[in-house]
C-alpha cells in the first residue's frame, strides 16, 4: 500500500545526528561540490540506475536524473539519504543486476554524505555571527552567585532546580541547543523568587544558630558495658571497631539540625596510635544518612585537641553524630564464647581429634561465632591497641557567615539605618542593574523596575519585600537571561518636528512606513509619522539602508567583550575590574585582552572553565556509560572508575596550569594518577587516594590522552572493546573530523561465538570483506585496532581477554595497521608517533573545539582565516592552550557581533 508522504525526513543514523533545517532562503543554496556530481554521480546513475529510475520508468516514484541538488530542501535531502543508504546497504542496484564497482559506489555515497553534512552546516550557519543565546544553568548559577555574593545550599542551588541544558557540537554553550520554553521560564521565576528570599532578609534568622555540646562522661551507661569502650571521668576511650560515641539523648530532645544549612561538627580528642604506628583516624558520621568524614586524630594521649569541620546538611532525617575508630580492633559480644571455642579447637587440633574439631567448628558456626582472628580485650594488652579518647562532641549551626547576609548588605548598601524611600530604591537599582545585565543601563530601564517597587509599596508591602520584587524582575528579564548583544544602530542625531518645531535628539530604530520608530538617549522610544518630520530629516530616514539597521557585523562594545571573556573563562559575569576596564573603553587592544586572559586564568574561577571544557571536550562524563562486567573485570570498582575520570580532568588541568604543550594530549612523559590507577597501569611507587603528577617510564603506554583508561572504558561496551567507537573518539575529539555515518540498521559486531575464537580484529576484518562496508572501515578501523592492547577497563593486554577468553586459548593482539594517510605502524607506540606527526591537525581541532565553546556556535567557513591565524601563532610558539585562548579572544569572530 502506498504510504502517505513522510513529513519528517532524513534518517538518524546510528549515533549520528542527521539534520534538516530549512534555511530562510532555499534558492540560495549551493551544493558544496558540484564537480564531483557531474564527474562521478551522473555517470554512475546513467550506468546503474536510470533504466529503473529515469525518464522512462520511475520505480518507487523516484527519478534520479531530475533529482535536484538543493539539499536544504527536505524532500530532496530525504531522497538523497535514501539513495545513499540503499547503495551502502547493497540493496541498490537490486541483487539480480550487475554490481557497480565498489570505488564507484563509494565515491557516490561519500559525495552524498558530504553534501548532507554541508547542508546541515549551512542551515545551522549563523553567517559567522554569534547568535543570541541564554545562560546555561551553570552560567546562571555562577552569575547569581557572583552578582549577589550569595551562598546557596547545595541541594537547592539554581543548577539543581533548573533543568539540564541541551548540547550541540558536544557543548552545552551552543545557542542552537539552548532553547527556552514555558517550563524553563517557570523555573526561572521559581529560582528568582528563591534568590530574592535568600538575598534579602527581614529581621533575625528564622532559625538562630545554636551550639549543642555533648559531654560524653557519665552519659553512656549502655555503652560503658561494652568491652570496646572504657568510660572515664573526663570522657571515653574507644578501642574497638563498630562502636562509637553516639550522641543519642545528649541533645535533650532538641534537634541537632533544626534547618537546612551549614553546620560545624567539632569534638575534642586525643589518640594512642597502637602498635602499628599508623596515625589514628576516626569516622565522624551522621547516623541517619548524609555524610562520613575521616579525621586524623594526632593529639597525643593526655593532650586532647579540638577537631572540627563545616559542611552543609539538610534538616531532614534528624539523626545524631557518631564517632568511631577506623581500623579499630575487632571485638564482638560473642567474644568470650569465641575464645572458649577457639581454645577447644586448637587443643583438639593438637591432639589430632579432628571429629571434635569439626564439632566445635560446627557449633561455633551455628551460633554465629565465626570470626577466627578475633581478639579479646582481656586477652590482649590494650596498650598495643589503637585507641581514641573523646571528651565531647559539639554541633553548631545553622551557621550564617554573617547576619544580615552579605547579599543583603550589598543590596541595601546604606546600612540598616537608611531611610527606606523610593529614592533609596532608585539608588539600589542604579547600582544593581548594570551589573546584573552586564552593561550600561538606561534611566528608563531603571525607572521601570522602580515603578514596580513603588507599586508593591503602594499595596502596603514592606520596603524589603518591594525591593525583592524588583530583584525578581531584574533576574527574569531577558536582559539577564540572555547574552544580549544588540545589532548595530545608526547614531543619535537631532530630529525636528515639522508641526511643532520641537527638536529632539534620537536615533532610528526602525522604519515602518508611514512611520518611523525613534529612540531617545534615555531609552524612551516612540512612533512618529514620517510626515511630521521636516523634509531633510524625512529624507535622512528614507535613505537609511535596511542593512544599516541590521545584518552587518559590528565590533563589540567593551561591555560585550567583558561578558564574552568572563563567560568563556569563568562561566560567569565580569568582575569589577573587567567592568571598570569596559567603562574606561579599554578591552579593545590585544595587549589588554591578553593580559586579562592571564589574570583571569590565575583566578580560582577559572577552575570552572577547566573542568567544564575538559569534561565536555574529552567526554569525561561519558567514560562510565557502560559498567564493565564485574565478573570478567574483577579489578574494576566504582572508585577506580571515578579515578579514571579524575585522571583525565587533572591531566587537562596540569597541561593548562603548567603551560605545557598541547601535544601532550597526543603523547606525554607524565600522567596524573593515584594508587588505584597506578596498580592498573603497573606503575610502582604510587600509593593512596591522592592524585599526583607522575613521570612515566620511557616504555610506558600511558602518555597522552589515549593512554588513559577512561578513554578505553568509553570505547567498550562493558564486555568487549569497541574499536570503531575508539576510532571515532580519535577522529572526533582529537581531530574534530567526524567520519561519515554508517548506513542504518548496521548491527554491532557479532559477539564471539564459542568454539570460534576470533579476536575483535579478526571479526572486524571479516566485516571489511563485505565490500560495501570496506570503504569506510578501512579508513576508520586502524585508529581503533591500534588501541586493542587496551582492554575494556583500559588495562594493557597482549592477548585477547573478556568475552570468556582464557589466557591459554586467547589469540594475540595485533594492533598493526596503516592510517589513511599511508603511514604504517606495527605497535601502539608507533601509532601514537604517527598521530603526533599530525600535530597541526590536532592543534587546529583543539582550536575549533575551544572556539565553539567560546562563541557558542560551531566554526564556519568565514572563521577560516581567524583559525588559520590562531593555529599559526600557537604552532610557532609553545603550542600552549593559553596561546589558543589568547588567540581566540583577540580574533575577529570573538570581537564582533
Amino acid at each position: 500500500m502506498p504510504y502517505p508522504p513522510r513529513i519528517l525526513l532524513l534518517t538518524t543514523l546510528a549515533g549520528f545526528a542527521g539534520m534538516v533545517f530549512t534555511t530562510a532562503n532555499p534558492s540560495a543554496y549551493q551544493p558544496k561540490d558540484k564537480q564531483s556530481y557531474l564527474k562521478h554521480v551522473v555517470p554512475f546513475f546513467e550506468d546503474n540506475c536510470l533504466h529503473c529510475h529515469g525518464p522512462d520508468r520511475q520505480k518507487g516514484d523516484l527519478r534520479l536524473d531530475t533529482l535536484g541538488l538543493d539539499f536544504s530542501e527536505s524532500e530532496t535531502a530525504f531522497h538523497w539519504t535514501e539513495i545513499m543508504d540503499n547503495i551502502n546497504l547493497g540493496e541498490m542496484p537490486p541483487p539480480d543486476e550487475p554490481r557497480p564497482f565498489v570505488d564507484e559506489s563509494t565515491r557516490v555515497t561519500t559525495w552524498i554524505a558530504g553534501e548532507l553534512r554541508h547542508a546541515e552546516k549551512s542551515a545551522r550557519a549563523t553567517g559567522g555571527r554569534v547568535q543570541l543565546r541564554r545562560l546555561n544553568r551553570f552560567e546562571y548559577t555562577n552569575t547569581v552567585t557572583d552578582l549577589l555574593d550569595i551562598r546557596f545550599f547545595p541541594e537547592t542551588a539554581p543548577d539543581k532546580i533548573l533543568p539540564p541544558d541541551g548540547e550541540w557540537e558536544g557543548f552545552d554553550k551552543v545557542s542552537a541547543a539552548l532553547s527556552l520554553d514555558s517550563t524553563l521560564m517557570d523555573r526561572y521565576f521559581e529560582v528568582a523568587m528563591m534568590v530574592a528570599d535568600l538575598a534579602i532578609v527581614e529581621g533575625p534568622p528564622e532559625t538562630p544558630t545554636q551550639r549543642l555540646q555533648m559531654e560524653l562522661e557519665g552519659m553512656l551507661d549502655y555503652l560503658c558495658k561494652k568491652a570496646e569502650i572504657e568510660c572515664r571521668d573526663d570522657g571515653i576511650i574507644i578501642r574497638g571497631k563498630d562502636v562509637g560515641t553516639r550522641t543519642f539523648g545528649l541533645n535533650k530532645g532538641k534537634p541537632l539540625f533544626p534547618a537546612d544549612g551549614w553546620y560545624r561538627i567539632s569534638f575534642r580528642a586525643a589518640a594512642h596510635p597502637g602498635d602499628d604506628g599508623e596515625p589514628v583516624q576516626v569516622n565522624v558520621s551522621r547516623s541517619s544518612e548524609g555524610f562520613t568524614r575521616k579525621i586524623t586524630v594526632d593529639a597525643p594521649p593526655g593532650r586532647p585537641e579540638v577537631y572540627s569541620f563545616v559542611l552543609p546538611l539538610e534538616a531532614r532525617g534528624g539523626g545524631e553524630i557518631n564517632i568511631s575508630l577506623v581500623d579499630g580492633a575487632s571485638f564482638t559480644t560473642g567474644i568470650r564464647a569465641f575464645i572458649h571455642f577457639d581454645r577447644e579447637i586448637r587443643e583438639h587440633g593438637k591432639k589430632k581429634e579432628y571429629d571434635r574439631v569439626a564439632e566445635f567448628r560446627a557449633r561455633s558456626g551455628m551460633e554465629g561465632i565465626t570470626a577466627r582472628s578475633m581478639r579479646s580485650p582481656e586477652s590482649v594488652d590494650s596498650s598495643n591497641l589503637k585507641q581514641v579518647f573523646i571528651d565531647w562532641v559539639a554541633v553548631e549551626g545553622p551557621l550564617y557567615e554573617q547576619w544580615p547576609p552579605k547579599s543583603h548588605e550589598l543590596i541595601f548598601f546604606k546600612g540598616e539605618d537608611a531611610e527606606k524611600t523610593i529614592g533609596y530604591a532608585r539608588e539600589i537599582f542604579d547600582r544593581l542593574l548594570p551589573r546584573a545585565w552586564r552593561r550600561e543601563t538606561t534611566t528608563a530601564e531603571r525607572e521601570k523596575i522602580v515603578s514596580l517597587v513603588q507599586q508593591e509599596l503602594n499595596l502596603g508591602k514592606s520596603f524589603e519585600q518591594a525591593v525583592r520584587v524588583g530583584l525578581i524582575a531584574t533576574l527574569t528579564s531577558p536582559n539577564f537571561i540572555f547574552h544580549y548583544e544588540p545589532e548595530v544602530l545608526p547614531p543619535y542625531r537631532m530630529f525636528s518636528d515639522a508641526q511643532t518645531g520641537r527638536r529632539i535628539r534620537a536615533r532610528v530604530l526602525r522604519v515602518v512606513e508611514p512611520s518611523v520608530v525613534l529612540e531617545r538617549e534615555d531609552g524612551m522610544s516612540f512612533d512618529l509619522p514620517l510626515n511630521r518630520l521636516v523634509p531633510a530629516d524625512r529624507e535622512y530616514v528614507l535613505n537609511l539602508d535596511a542593512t544599516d539597521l541590521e545584518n552587518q557585523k559590528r565590533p563589540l562594545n567593551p561591555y560585550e567583550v567583558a561578558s564574552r571573556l568572563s563567560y568563556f573563562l569563568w562561566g560567569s559575569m565580569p568582575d569589577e575590574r573587567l567592568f571598570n576596564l569596559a567603562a574606561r573603553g579599554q578591552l579593545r587592544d590585544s595587549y589588554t585582552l591578553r593580559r586579562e586572559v592571564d589574570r583571569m586564568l590565575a583566578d580560582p574561577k577559572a577552575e570552572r572553565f577547566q573542568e567544564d571544557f575538559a569534561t565536555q571536550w574529552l567526554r569525561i562524563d561519558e567514560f562510565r556509560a557502560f559498567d564493565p562486567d564485574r565478573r570478567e573485570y574483577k579489578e574494576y570498582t566504582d572508585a577506580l572508575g571515578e579515578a579514571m575520570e579524575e585522571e583525565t580532568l587533572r591531566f587537562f588541568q596540569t597541561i593548562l596550569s603548567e603551560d605545557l604543550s598541547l601535544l601532550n594530549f597526543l603523547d606525554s612523559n607524565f600522567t596524573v594518577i593515584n594508587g588505584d590507577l597506578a596498580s592498573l597501569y603497573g606503575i610502582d611507587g604510587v600509593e593512596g587516594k591522592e592524585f599526583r603528577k607522575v613521570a612515566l617510564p620511557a616504555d610506558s603506554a600511558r602518555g597522552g590522552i589515549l593512554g588513559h583508561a577512561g578513554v578505553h572504558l568509553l570505547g567498550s561496551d562493558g564486555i568487549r572493546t569497541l574499536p570503531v567507537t575508539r576510532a571515532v573518539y580519535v577522529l572526533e575529539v582529537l581531530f574534530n573530523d567526524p567520519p561519515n555515518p554508517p548506513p542504518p540498521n548496521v548491527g554491532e559486531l557479532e559477539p564471539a561465538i564459542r568454539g570460534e575464537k576470533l579476536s575483535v580484529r579478526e571479526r572486524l576484518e571479516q566485516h571489511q570483506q563485505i565490500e560495501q562496508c570496506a570503504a569506510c572501515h578501512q579508513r576508520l578501523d586502524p585508529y581503533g585496532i591500534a588501541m586493542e592492547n587496551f582492554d575494556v577497563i583500559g588495562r594493557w593486554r597482549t592477548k585477547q581477554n573478556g568475552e570468556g577468553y582464557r589466557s591459554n586459548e586467547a589469540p594475540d593482539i595485533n594492533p598493526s595497521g596503516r592510517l589513511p594517510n599511508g603511514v604504517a605502524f606495527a605497535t601502539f607506540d608507533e601509532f601514537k608517533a604517527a598521530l603526533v606527526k599530525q600535530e597541526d591537525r590536532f592543534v587546529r581541532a583543539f582550536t575549533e573545539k575551544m572556539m565553539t565553546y567560546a562563541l557558542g556556535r560551531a566554526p564556519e567557513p568565514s572563521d577560516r582565516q581567524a583559525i588559520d591565524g590562531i593555529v599559526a601563532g600557537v604552532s610557532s610558539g609553545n603550542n600552549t592552550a593559553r596561546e589558543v585562548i589568547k588567540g581566540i579572544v583577540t580574533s575577529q569572530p570573538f570581537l564582533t557581533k
Partner: protein
Amino acid sequence: MHITKDVNLKRRTFLKGLGAVVALPYLEAMWPTTKAMAATTSPVPPRMAMFYFGTGMNMRQFTPETTGRDYKMSRILKPLEGFRDDFTVLSNTWLEKGGGHHGAYPFSTSVGFGEKQQISPDQIAASQIGGSTRYPSLQLSVGKGTAYGNQALATISWNEQGVPIPAENDPYVIFNKLFRPDAPEEIDNIRDDARMKKSVLDLVRDDASRMNRFLGTTDREKLDQYFTSIREIEKQVDRRVAWLDTPKPQPGLDVSIDESMDPDGRNNDFSYERYSKLMYDLIALAFQTDSTRVISYVVRRELRGGVYPEMDVSDGYHSLTHHGNDPRKLEDLAKVDTIYMQHWAHFLDRLKSIPEGDGNLLDYTMLGFSSGMGIGHSKSRLPTVLCGGSKLGISHQGHVELEENTPLSSVWHTMLDRMNVAVEGQFQDSRGPIGQLIA
C-alpha cells in the same frame, strides 16, 4: 517572607503535618465540583497515558508464541495473565528513527534525534481536552527534567514548539501537586504571588519587546521563545488562580508518601518496587480524581539504571542488552523485564479496582507502552502493549501480529482516535488507527 511559600523549598517538611496519608474511602461526594463539571460535558471522561521502557526488552521471552485471543502468555507477560482481556500485545511495531540509543527521541513523535521535534500525542490530547482538569497533563519519569541532548532522555512529552517538557520523578512532589490542600493563608499568598508575577511579566515582556527591536532575524527567532514562554506562564497563572476556588480532591487509595524519593540518588534505603508501585498508584489516583486525563511516564530511561539491587541480576540493564547470546545475560534480562511487568500488573489491578461509570477506571483509560528499540538495539520488534479502554471502543484481541514494520505512531493514533481527539492532516508516519483494535 511569604513569596516562596508556593514553591517547593519547604516540601520536605511540609507534608509531615498531613501525616502518612490515610486510607480514605472513595467518596464521590468529596469533590462535587470536578465531578459536576465532568458530568456536564460527558458522563465519564476518557483518559490516556504513554509509557516508555528504555533499552528494549528481551523479545525472545516477550513475544507470545501464539496469536489471537487465546494466546499463550510469554514468560515476561505472565504476570499479566489475570488481565488478559484488558490488553493487546501488538507485535511488529517499528520506529523508523529508533533502534540504537536515541530511541526515546522518536518514541512519541517519530522525529529522530537531532531533528526539529514536534508536538507529542499526549500534548495534542492535552491541548484539546486538558482544559477541564486542574492539570492539562502530567509528565512523570524515573529521571527529573528533560536530559535533552542525552541519550537517556527523561521525558517523552514535547510541546507545540517541539521543546521537551520536563518530567518529575519524585512521588512526594507529585502527590503534593495533586492532593496537598492549599491552606487558606496559602491561597491568599498564591493570589498575591499571581498578582506579583503578572506585574513582573508585564515588565519583562516590555523588556523583551524593546530588545527585539535591536535584534536581527535569527536572534529574534530565539527571543520568540521567550515571548511564547511568558504568554504560556500568564495562562498558567490565570489557570492556577481560577482553580483556587476548587478544593483539591482527596486521594481514595491508601497511598502513603511522607518524604521525597529519588531514584537517581544513591540511597541504600531506596526500594524500586515501592517507588514503582507508588508512581503507578499516583497515576491511578490522578485519573480517579480527574486531576488530569493525560499522562506520560518514562518508566525506564534509555541506558540508565533499569536494574536495582533488589532485582538481583549480574549487571546493569544496558550491559545485559549486549548479551552476546550469553544465556545468563538473556536470563537476567527476562528476569528484570518480568519484574517490571509484575509492577505493571499491580497498576492494572489498581485501575480495575476503582469503579467508574458502568465499569472500572481501566475501562475508561488507555495505557500504551513500548520502547525505543526491540532486542539487539533493533528498530523493529518493539515491546508494544495497549491496555484498557474497553469502554472507549477498544476491542482487545489478545496477541496481534500487525503488518511488518507498522509504525509505532499508529498505536498513538489509535489512542488519540479513541480519545476523540482530532488530528490535523497526516499524523506522524502513522498508517491510521489500528483497525483490529477498534470495536
